[in-house]
């Protein structure tokens, strides 16, 4: 337990001292601010007309987020897609940096079990992603309040926030296999490339109507259906996380580390 606590300290220290906070803060603020800007443009027809095409798209978005419930569903969907990329970036960095910086070898022949080292990395990835999701939610709530969206009742805000929180948890679960991609690919390229592929696949699967059963489509499906999700879908997300973590562990434990 002490070893795990030490490893969490180590991973936190590495993350805090890196550029990761800067990138993730920029990413987490960019999404709600961007949507708020488009809604603001749509709410001001004069500006909307002057902006032409952008104004048309902004109108479309404002139609989708014309009140608090719809706005928070949009925020949850934003986390299912944009948040997914941010979380993939975090997990790719936490695992892939050991290969890119050549520091992996310093973790391989030490008395601390590799399971503790990996678990600490997963804990920090999860915690960091949760903080990013919280920042997105808080920024979205502030922007919604500033825009003066209707139906801002406490119950509605609480329900919408819970939708965003659960969507975030589902996304965090389904990004866990990307630790394996970062390890097997020995860097950032494979996990980030896979993230693009998986997101495209998730959209295709959702169009075909199987979104509830494809792990990476589950968060978007959950957000779109406003929390209406079968137990099997939750299980799929959890199993995806467990399988990803286990595959990563096996790879770290058994693969030749010759670089």
């Amino acid at each position: 337990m002490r070893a795990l606590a030490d490893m969490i300290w180590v991973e936190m220290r590495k993350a805090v001292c890196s550029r990761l906070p800067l990138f993730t803060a920029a990413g987490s603020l960019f999404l709600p601010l961007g949507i708020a800007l488009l809604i603001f443009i749509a709410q001001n027809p004069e500006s909307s007309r002057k902006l032409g095409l952008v104004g048309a798209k902004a109108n479309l978005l404002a139609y989708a987020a014309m009140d608090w419930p719809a706005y928070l569903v949009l925020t949850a969907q934003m986390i299912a897609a944009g948040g997914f990329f941010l979380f993939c970036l975090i997990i790719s960095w936490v695992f892939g940096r050991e290969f890119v910086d050549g520091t992996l070898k310093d973790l391989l022949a030490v008395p601390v079990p590799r399971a503790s080292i990996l678990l600490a990395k997963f804990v920090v990835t999860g915690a960091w992603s949760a903080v990013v999701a919280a920042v997105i939610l808080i920024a979205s709530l502030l922007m919604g309040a500033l825009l003066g969206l209707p139906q801002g009742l406490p119950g509605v805000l609480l329900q919408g926030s819970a939708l965003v929180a659960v969507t975030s948890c589902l996304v965090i679960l389904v990004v866990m296999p990307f630790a394996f991609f970062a390890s097997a690919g020995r860097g950032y390229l494979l996990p980030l490339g896979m993230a693009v592929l998986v997101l495209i696949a998730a959209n295709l699967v959702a169009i075909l109507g199987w979104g509830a059963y494809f792990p990476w489509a589950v968060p978007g499906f959950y957000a779109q259906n406003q929390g209406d999700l079968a137990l099997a879908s939750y299980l799929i997300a959890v199993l995806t996380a467990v399988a990803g973590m286990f595959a990563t562990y096996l790879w770290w434990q058994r693969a030749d580390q010759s670089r």
Partner: protein
Amino acid sequence: MVAAYGFRHSGMHAAPGVHVMIASDIIQMIQADRLPAGRRITTVNLAIETQDLAKRYRDVTAVADLSLRVAEGELYAFLGLNGAGKTTTIRLLLGMIKPTAGCARVLGTSVRMGSREPRAAVGYLVEMPHSYPELTVRENLEVARRLHPGTPRQAVSRFIERLGLAADADRRAATLSQGNAQRLGLAKALLHEPRLLVLDEPANGLDPAGIVEIRALLLELTRKQGVTVFMSSHILAEVARLATRIGIIHKAHLIREIDVEDLERDRRRRLLVRTRDMEAACRVLAAAGQPVEMLPDGALELRNAAAIASPDDIALLLADAGVPPTHLVVEEEELEQYFLRLVGAKEDVT
């Protein structure tokens, strides 16, 4: 058991009349299975032991049939050209890669990938000394300390001082010079005061002063603290000043193991002679039964042991024949020449 035998450079002093054996003697006796009854040494005394260790990557053989024995307290240099298999061997010893064949034992424990034993007692530096660039020197050492539970907090400051990193302690590792990055790598390897140090080219990137400093540090560790050091290098002259034994690896095979003391005996010597009349001198020496060769620069070269042992006899012979030497010198083969000769000899065999 170890103390009873004593080791060269181990800092242990035998009582008068006590026979002191050096590590390589013990190893030779183990190999020949002729240790005296009751003094049979067990593998506990071996810090490293490999048996037919091999690593192949598809068609490429990185290490083949490697059988090594390094006694505790020994400073063993593993010498080879780039790509000879030194780093692969080190990674095999540290359990970072799976052997294709054979096995290795380190500090009495079989090496297995991902196992926790005997990690706590082993310090290592493999290839380039990488550190977390965004962390300071002190923070990097703190990370290393936490990776070795039980290492006291004070060890960080102590090794910052010991490795001469005090001025850079709070600098980010990304801004360190190559020499200081190497010092940081060595500090990480030493921090938990291991019984066995496995170092891959430890002098890489160090300036001459740094090399002398690290050499002194390694000698101190082996002599005063009985630490076993297994270090790789591609410079024979460097390790000859430091090691007790040298293993030479070439094209994945261990081609030679030699005690440093035997290096002198093993290196070729020659007697070079110059006179005012080289042709006449050559005839005189040949007539006296001395195999002599005239070199392109005109000097006469004698390689037979008797001539090398008694150059004064040669001088007398030439002086009596009326061609006294103007230049008479016994030359010893350069270490690097010796190394290249060994490597070349192996190539001829294969």
